[in-house]
Every structure is written in structure tokens, then in C-alpha cells.
């Protein structure tokens, strides 16, 4: 249990998707202009991560890993499909995003209004694929671990983009050298925030 909680805290603060691995930077820079849209996208990322990572975990564990097919009988124990994992992961993500979009639109129109425009963007958000790939690299023992990792990473991403958007809203009033305005200063601020987040390393 404490393991699961540990993974959660680590993935929010220490292994933060944005500050430690720069994942999902494209949408992070493009959408962090106002707090409202930023938190919308953040929520959507959280949501999609929480669904795709455990699903990919199960697929990886029972279909793709070397020896994963042994539940089909001993003759399958030697099969190693891990070279397909990238393609399968991305397919699962693209499929899930599409499915989610339809389900949300049908049953939760309010949520759809809030997240709708962001969902298609997410299929090609590196944070999502990164979540699945890091999950694979880290070899979590159970599905619960991978779920807590997914939620943590999603929250970390949400935290990062919301904080960034809030900063950028204030930036409008500050006097920045002309060539640095816009993306330049955004990079530098992200870097400084990342340095700040490194303070959590000791936990």
C-alpha cells in the first residue's frame, strides 16, 4: 500500500512529466495561455492517462512481454512480441481517445463541453505515450501500481500546466526584452520552475 502511495507522490512531484522529462511540451506551450483552458486540457490528460496506462499495462503483461503468452499453454511461453508494444500502445491510445470522445459526448455533455476540443489533441500528446512507455520500463508489479502512477503523472501535468498558465497571465504586464517574448520566455520560465521542482528530489 505504501508503495502505491510512494509512486503517486513521486510521479506528481519528482518524476514530473513536464519538469523532469519534458513530455507533452507541445500542447503545454500552446495551451498554457489562460488558466481555464489549461486546466481543462490538464484534466483531459489526467483522464486519458488514468485509462490508457492500466489498459496498456494489462496488454503488455498478458500479451506482449517475453513469455507473457504462457497462459495460453507452454508452447506459447517462448513468444516475444515486445517489438510490437510501441505500435499497440499508440493504437490503444488513439482508439481510447476516440472512444472516450464518443462516450463523453453521449452521456456527459457538460464534461464534453469542457474537454471536447482537447481530446483529439491528446492522441498525439507525448505525455500519454510517455506514461505507457515509462510504465513498461519500470515494471510495476500490479495494475494498482500502474494506475497510481498514471493518476500521479496526470496530476503532475495538470499542476505544471495550470501553474504555467497562471504565470503567463501575469507575464502580460511585465517588461520582457522584445525577442524573448512569447515562447522564449515560456521556455525559460519552465526551466526555472523545473529547477524549483528539483527541490522535491530529497523526499
Amino acid at each position, binding site marked *: 500500500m505504501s508503495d502505491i502511495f510512494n509512486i503517486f507522490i513521486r510521479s506528481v512531484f519528482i*518524476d514530473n512529466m513536464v519538469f523532469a522529462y519534458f513530455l507533452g511540451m507541445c500542447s503545454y506551450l500552446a495551451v498554457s495561455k489562460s488558466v481555464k483552458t489549461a486546466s481543462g486540457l490538464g484534466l483531459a490528460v489526467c483522464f486519458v492517462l488514468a485509462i490508457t496506462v492500466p489498459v496498456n499495462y494489462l496488454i503488455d503483461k498478458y500479451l506482449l512481454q517475453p513469455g507473457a503468452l504462457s497462459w495460453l499453454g507452454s508452447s506459447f511461453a517462448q513468444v516475444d512480441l515486445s*517489438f*510490437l508494444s510501441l*505500435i499497440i500502445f499508440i493504437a490503444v491510445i488513439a482508439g481510447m481517445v476516440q472512444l472516450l470522445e464518443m462516450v463523453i459526448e453521449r452521456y456527459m455533455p457538460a464534461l464534453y463541453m469542457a474537454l471536447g476540443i482537447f481530446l483529439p489533441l491528446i492522441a498525439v500528446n507525448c505525455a500519454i505515450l510517455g506514461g505507457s512507455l515509462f510504465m513498461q*520500463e*519500470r515494471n510495476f508489479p500490479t495494475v494498482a501500481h500502474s494506475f497510481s502512477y498514471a493518476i500521479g503523472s496526470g496530476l503532475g501535468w495538470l499542476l505544471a500546466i495550470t501553474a504555467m498558465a497562471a504565470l503567463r497571465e501575469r507575464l502580460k504586464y511585465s517588461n520582457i526584452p522584445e525577442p524573448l517574448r512569447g515562447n522564449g520566455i515560456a521556455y525559460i520560465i519552465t526551466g526555472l520552475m523545473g529547477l524549483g521542482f528539483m527541490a522535491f*528530489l*530529497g523526499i
Partner: protein
Amino acid sequence: MRKFSNTYVFLYVSALVLLICVVLASVSIGLKSKREANVTREKYQQILKAAGYKDVPKKKTVSFFQEIAESEKGGKTSEQYHIRCADGNPGIVVRVQGKGLWGPIWGYVVLSEDGSSIKGVSFAHKSETPGLGAKITEDEFTNAFIDKKLYDQNGVFTSVRVVKKGQEGDLLEENRVDAISGATITSRGVDNMMKELRIEN
């Protein structure tokens, strides 16, 4: 853009997926032996480094290792080899593994024949910070382990501890090495890994 029928779309995707899978599968199988050879060679390289052999050419690693290895004992939980070290004396190679800051770390420790002192170590890591935690692979760190003792003056197993300067407590000089400054968690990982060091007979 032209309109396409549903059947066409379906067939198109199926054909594409099939094609891609077949090509990738054949490439993967074709390169498998090469990939596995890389993994083995890397392991042997690490052991040779720990045993004090410098500058063994990459291509000769495997044959060289087989030449000096006297017996090999590999299981699921432990890996142990008896080899001849660079100084001509026999040594026991033990694999250790643990967790660093970002991911797994592991290494090979070469012990003297009676298992009481260290003849050399080499560490590796998956994703430690370059320049900080990643320094565990560098000679500066690993050389400090040479000739350290695994037992204290009363014959109690202490292993070789990795401790920060100023926190040595009553550990003897010969039972500890200095931690890497700025890489507390990776150093602690190495420390824990060394504590687990066991020789199986």
C-alpha cells in the same frame, strides 16, 4: 479528395497493419541474435572491468571472458562466477542489484577467493542523472572500493558502506567509501545494494 467505401477503408487498414507486422516481425527475428549478443557482451565487459582488465577490445570480449572464467553459476536470483583476475589471482564475481533515483542500478563485485575483501567493482544504471548519479560507473567512484573489507575487526559482516563525508560514525576506513556529492539517493542505492551482497556456495 475522393470518397472511399467502408469495405475499402476496412481492407486498407487491415492490409497496412498486416504488412507492417510482417516486416517488423521478420526484422525483429533477424536481429534477435545480434541484440542478445550485445546484452551478453555488455555483461562480460562489466565483469572484466570489475576484475581489473583494461582495454579488452570490444570484439574479443566474449572469447576473452570464456578464457578466464573457471566456473559459471547463474540462477534466477543470483549470478556467480569464478574467474581469474587481472593480477593472476582467482576471484569470485557476484552480481548485485538495487534501485537508484530514477530506475534500476546493478553491478558486479569481484571478491577475493576467501570472500573477505573486494578486488574490484563495476556499476551500471538505467537512467541516473548524467554527471551526478551516473558517476557511479566512473573509475573515480569504483576505484575507491578496491581492497576494502567486508567484515569489521570483530569479524562481523558490515559490507562496504557508501556514506557521506562527516557521517562515518564508527565505521572503519576499510569498511566504507565516500558517497557522491549531489547524488544522495543514487549513493544510498549503491549502499543498499552492497548490504545485500552475499556469496552462495
